[in-house]
């Protein structure tokens, strides 16, 4: 019923290594024997049709789901053994973006970015301006449009000290300019030695993207 497309990506220094990952949900095998290596400087796009297990894979990598078999190795050690140091070096961006509707963009970032590094308001304001939210810094987020809320959360990318970014469909509801800008941000992060794992159905127009396709047949 299920056929697994396996692919191994290998560039630069090994950051995250996945060995023989299997995941079954509701008795349907989503992927089995999935192995790949993510290295500094990579952008890895997880592709696959709806329901092929992309979100599940990303959540497993971050330790948010534990219904899997296999090994996930972070800088040479199992992620289970070093959860906290892994968390400090990881930024996850999920389907739900982590923006409180009552707080303003500024207040939201003060907390969500502040959990990972020390920030000051000037840094936050700059990040908000960079994602095109100038003039909305002090509006409560429930008055923002869907795309603007997405942008608030994306401002975290510009503030994060994390090496590995794990992004689940970050492009939804963004307009054309914002999409181009986000692609640029991802490319920059990789160039500076970071790594990005991203799912999207959108065709990335970035130079060197590796692709891993999860297959349902």
């Amino acid at each position, binding site marked *: 019923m299920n056929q697994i497309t396996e692919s191994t990506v290998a560039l630069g220094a090994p950051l995250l290594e996945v060995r023989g990952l299997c995941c079954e949900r509701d008795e349907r095998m989503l992927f089995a024997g999935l192995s790949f290596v993510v290295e500094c400087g990579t952008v890895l796009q997880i592709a696959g049709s709806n329901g092929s297990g992309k979100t599940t894979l990303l*959540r497993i990598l*971050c*330790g*948010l*789901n*534990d*219904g899997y078999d296999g090994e996930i190795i972070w800088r040479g050690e199992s992620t289970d053994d070093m959860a*906290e*140091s892994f*968390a*400090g070096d*990881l930024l*996850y961006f*999920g*389907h*739900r*973006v*982590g*923006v*409180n*509707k*009552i*707080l303003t963009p500024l*207040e939201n970032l*003060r*907390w*969500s970015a*502040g*959990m*990972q*590094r*020390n920030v000051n308001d000037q840094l936050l304001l700059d990040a908000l301006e960079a994602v095109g939210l100038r003039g909305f810094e002090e509006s*409560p987020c429930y008055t923002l449009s869907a795309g603007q809320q997405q942008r608030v959360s994306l401002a975290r990318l510009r*503030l*994060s*000290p994390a*090496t590995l970014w794990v992004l689940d469909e970050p492009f939804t509801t963004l307009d054309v300019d914002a999409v181009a800008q986000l692609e640029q941000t991802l490319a920059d*992060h990789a160039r*500076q*030695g*970071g790594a990005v794992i991203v799912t999207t159905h959108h065709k990335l127009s970035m130079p060197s993207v590796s692709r891993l396709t999860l297959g349902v047949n």
Partner: protein
Amino acid sequence: MLSVGVKPSTRSAFMLTLKRDLLIAFKRKNDIVNPFMFFVIVISLFPLAISPEGERLTEIAAGVIWIAVLLSAMLSMDSLYRGDFEDGSLEILLLSPHPLFFLVLAKNIAHWLVSGLPVVIASPLLAYMLKLPSESYATLMLTLLIGTPTLSLIGSIAVALTVGLGSRGLILAVITLPFSVPVLIFGTLAVQASASGLPSGGYLTLLLALLAGSLSLAPLTSAAALRISVS
């Protein structure tokens, strides 16, 4: 860029979370006024439904106040993690590089400051309305001061377990209420004892023990429950 960030201390993550939750509560206002209003309204139902006579009220006052406290604490729990679950902030919390124990504790403290403390402060007024003998006001406040944080901590476990469910109000109650029975019993016994001039120190000690126990165990359990709920 990758090396600029300095990882904040756990202490500052704790303060950041505490401040954020207080800020949300103050912006919403309802979170502060409502537990208190609910407490007042429930208490005022009793003279209506049972009896407006002063003597009868005196007899039931301690129990009624404690039951109202219990129900209002339980109702107010609903907002503890739900918003964060729905908007994805909970994932940010779980994936932050700090021990979850302290972050959960920060959230619980913020919640208690907002929903428990006002009730404690208002209690003498309601005790007066229910004709509780004035000698026991001090004991009442003291038991509430010790008891309400315990209730919050216990409730937090139940909320964390049920945070992903559609309608939680009731399942929350079903899980929390049996756990709150000891607090309820010792709380009322202490007040009743002081109302009849007996010493209430023993009950207070028991309440303190319950608080100490839940302070050390409940945040851990809540943290584990949150991890389960989010997965």
